[in-house]
């Protein structure tokens, strides 16, 4: 028994012992020559492995960070993680960055030892049902069976919503998104619930996407964003400002096509963003041209959105993810 206990502690300890040896994440990534990024196992628009190549908004953000740090967006090793595995992977130092449609919550930010680098997608939880049920509001769902992912904010929100409205429900929770959608498609559940973006993304995987409708109620705030381990401020700043650089670039009209000529712009805001003036890059410990690498290789935030979410087959309207100048919520602190 004591041997087993020792082994237990040993195995658990080893997992956590790794980051102790870590110096600054930046140095480690540079030395290794590639970024290790945790993404979801397959969510169209956010991260999908198609033909051996990952694509999606979350994936593109990993590439943007690789471009900022290593100058090459292709130098990323992707680790597909389930909702259940993701936090341990980051805590244990298995990955440098978690970019996996993860909701920014107080507990995760404070008790789990993470720092959220900002919001890359403003989302909210919704419900999808079969059209043949003739339901047009989530208020009519009392007694329904709901399929969801285990260990997510989704699971808690649905409990909150049904409790708050005095309705009954039966939760069937799976670890993998693919199992959830398969269970819903085969009729095990009446309702599929996750973030609205996920509903749109998963709907195209159904046998007959036209037969399903997404209900109008949005029952929660789900600000999704990339996150890093606490305790490495430099790395946290790099990830945070990579995101801000892409949002600011869109606001200033800098995109992947014009970034080379914009470098010679007279606009001081553009000059500071692209590293022609100022020392922001150096302060972060990066090359002066780090934002140029990000924008020329990956594009600005609008390009990322257009490419991954607004295009066929997802067609997710930009909605609250428009820039603040267009009435949306996307607002990045200035490069100054």
């Amino acid at each position, binding site marked *: *028994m004591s041997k*087993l206990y*020792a082994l*237990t*502690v*040993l195995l*658990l*300890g*080893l997992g*956590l*012992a790794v*980051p*102790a040896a870590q110096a600054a994440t930046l140095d480690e990534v540079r030395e290794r020559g590639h970024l290790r990024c945790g993404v979801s196992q397959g969510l169209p628009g956010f991260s999908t492995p198609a033909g051996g190549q990952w694509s999606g908004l979350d994936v593109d953000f990993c590439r943007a960070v690789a471009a900022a740090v290593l100058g090459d967006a292709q130098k990323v090793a992707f680790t597909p993680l389930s*909702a*259940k595995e993701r*936090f*341990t992977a980051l*805590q244990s130092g298995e990955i440098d960055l978690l970019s996996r449609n993860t909701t920014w919550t107080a*507990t*995760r930010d*404070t*008790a*789990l*030892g993470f720092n959220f680098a900002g919001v890359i997608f403003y989302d909210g939880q919704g419900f999808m049902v079969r059209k043949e049920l003739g339901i047009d509001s989530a208020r009519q*769902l*009392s*007694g*329904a*069976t709901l399929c969801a992912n*285990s*260990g*997510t904010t989704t*699971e*808690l929100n*649905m*409990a*909150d919503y*049904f*409790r708050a409205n005095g309705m009954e*429900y*039966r*939760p*069937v*929770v*799976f*670890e993998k998104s693919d*199992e959830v959608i*398969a*269970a819903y498609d*085969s*009729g*095990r559940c*009446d309702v599929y619930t996750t973030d609205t973006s996920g509903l749109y993304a998963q709907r195209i995987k159904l046998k007959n996407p036209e037969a399903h409708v997404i209900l109008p109620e949005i029952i929660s705030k789900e600000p999704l964003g990339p996150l890093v*381990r*606490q*305790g490495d401020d430099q790395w946290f700043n790099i990830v945070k400002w990579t995101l801000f650089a892409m949002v600011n670039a869109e606001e200033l009209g800098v995109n992947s096509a014009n970034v080379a000529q914009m470098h010679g712009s007279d606009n001081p805001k553009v000059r500071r963003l692209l590293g022609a003036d100022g020392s922001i890059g150096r302060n972060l410990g990066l090359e002066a041209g780090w934002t140029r690498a990000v924008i020329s290789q990956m594009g600005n935030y609008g390009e990322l959105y257009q490419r991954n979410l607004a295009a066929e087959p997802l067609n997710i309207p930009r909605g609250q993810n428009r820039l603040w100048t267009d009435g949306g919520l996307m607002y990045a602190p200035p490069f100054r």
Partner: protein
Amino acid sequence: MARRHTPFGAAPRTPRWRDPRTRALVFQVVLLGAVALGIGWIVNNTLSNLARQGIASGLGFWGEDAGFGIIMSLIEYSEAASYGRAFLVGLLNTLLVSALGILLATLLGLVIGIARLSPNWLLRRLAAAYIETFRNIPLLLAIFFWYFAVLRSLPHPRHSIDLFGLAYLSNRGVYLPQPVLGGGPGWLIAGLILGVLAVLALHRWTRRRRNAGRPLPVYPLWLGIAFILPPAVLLAAGGLSWSLPALRGFNFQGGMGLIPEFVALLLALSIYTAAFVAEIVRAGIESVARGQQEAASALGLNRRQSLRLVVLPQAMRVIVPPLTNQYLNLTKNSSLAAAIAYPDLVSVFAGTVLNQTGQAVEVISITMAVYLTISLLIALAMNLYNRRTEWGVRR
């Protein structure tokens, strides 16, 4: 002569450092010290890393509100219950599926193991086919087969298979009529005690009759007492009514519902383990010397009697130790439940609770300790039983 003479028969004195007992002691102390140091280093390292990364630790989460729902619980549970309560729900679900699985696998395995040795060619072949098929399919696949291929292809509740208006089969599960007891649990317990007393009395009486050479068909009587007496007492005390399942809204209401996740897991676990149990039973029976059976038939016992009274009791001491192993395996295998959303300990506690709290070290340690405890308890029970069946060896 310089050579020292030792008296005949006395061993030469060995220096202390070459004494095997001293050396063994020293090695053990050194090893113990190294292990203790290793553990200390690991614990210290884990704690300091947790602290450095700002990860909360400790068991403070135990009493906090869980906030999530669980589809099946044997005890009262709601979203407002604590994480500790959620742990208990998961644990009981694990124990339920394991206990029923062990029961079904034993019965099925016993029947198939005996059939495997039947003089009937067809029966023997069928049993062999069963064993070879299910023993060689990975358990996870078997679980997926029952869940996705069999139970999922059942119709939607609105078109469910109706069994005489009493039970319904659909892809939401099996709905059965549920007995509603009028008299309360006290009467049920009274009935059970009465049943046990009746069985004991019967046992004494039949033994006397058997010794007198007038045996009674005793098993049907036992079953009758066990299954009829307690409900009869209950019925007499407060009456019994039935809650029938009926389709209302999205799903069936009332009655007793078995969710497909539970049914699939139970079927897969029992059918899979039964194949191994059958082989163990066969090995046990074959280990009993042929002469025993011949002697039994020479005494005039028929095949069933010789199996039950002569062969199986002797086979048990070969059967029990590997059977214990199968019971442990079945219990541990029940953790595959997480793959099909059955809310067992791993799914609820090491899955959802771990994720909501982020307390990986604590939650995983507790889960491992629980499985260890269950396994040790099963092993203990089986070893106690084994000691009773060892009479053939000790006498």
